[in-house]
């Protein structure tokens, strides 16, 4: 490995850390309650509070997604996409969203459905 290789690697790591910090700083203002936002084609499709557990069915251009919202969190129950990555991303909960690699997100790229779990202020201590 030559000198400039190390410069490249270091600068990528620095950019990664900066964008991580930047994202934390500009994170959306949380509301008081915990809620889930479902985006379809980039637009907010539905916002559901965790205090109203339910299963949301999204039908979009022949795609089919079922999203289960419980008091603890949210997960993609089933999806008509072929790679099933969204289902494998598992459940995003209030417990795990800090350490989960995707944070509060579950993303189904083929069906253009994304889900974000937003934690409220009221239960922080």
């Amino acid at each position, binding site marked *: *490995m030559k000198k*400039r290789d190390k410069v490249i690697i270091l600068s990528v790591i620095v950019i990664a*850390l900066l*964008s*991580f910090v930047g994202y934390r700083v500009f994170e959306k203002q949380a509301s008081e309650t915990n809620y889930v936002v479902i985006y379809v084609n980039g637009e907010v499709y539905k916002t559901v509070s965790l205090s109203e557990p339910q299963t949301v069915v999204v039908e979009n251009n022949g795609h089919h997604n079922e999203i289960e919202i419980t008091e603890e969190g949210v997960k993609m129950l089933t999806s008509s996409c072929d790679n099933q990555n969204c289902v*494998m991303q598992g459940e995003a909960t209030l417990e795990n969203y800090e350490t989960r*690699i995707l944070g509060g*997100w579950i993303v189904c*790229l083929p069906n253009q459905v*994304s889900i974000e779990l937003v934690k409220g202020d009221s239960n922080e201590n």
Partner: protein
Amino acid sequence: MKTKSITRLGILLAVALVLGYFENLIPLNASIPGVKLGLSNIVLLYAIYLIDAKCAFILMILKVMLSGMLFSGVSGAIYSFAGGLLSLIMMLVIKRLPDVSIVGVSVVGAVFHNVGQISIASFVVENRYIFFYLPVLLISAVITGLATGIIAKYALKGLPD
């Protein structure tokens, strides 16, 4: 195109496809979504270093089309093409700089492959918040880029040009 070049291109394409298939067997994607080893970049590095840029572009395009037909489908191929194109252009640019080895070029390739893919992803789901995932993809690109770069370095030593 000479027969020798055609044959060589065919072999390289086959190797790239097999490496692409092989890395699908490693379930890295299940634990860290969107992350893969990028083993077939070794073949592109070979083309860049020992053949020429034109050959590398042909290989990349054919590889994306064929693995789209065989494994990943049309939507997968669009992502691979965006990542592959940006990655290849940036690798060719960085290679021209002095004092950069194949390992550095490989890391740059991995980084821009991920940048290309996340850009398409954010365009497709029309959601800019998806860029929150960029740090994860950048760090994993450094690791996978280093790994494939080092493999490529030793593979090139053992291969005739």
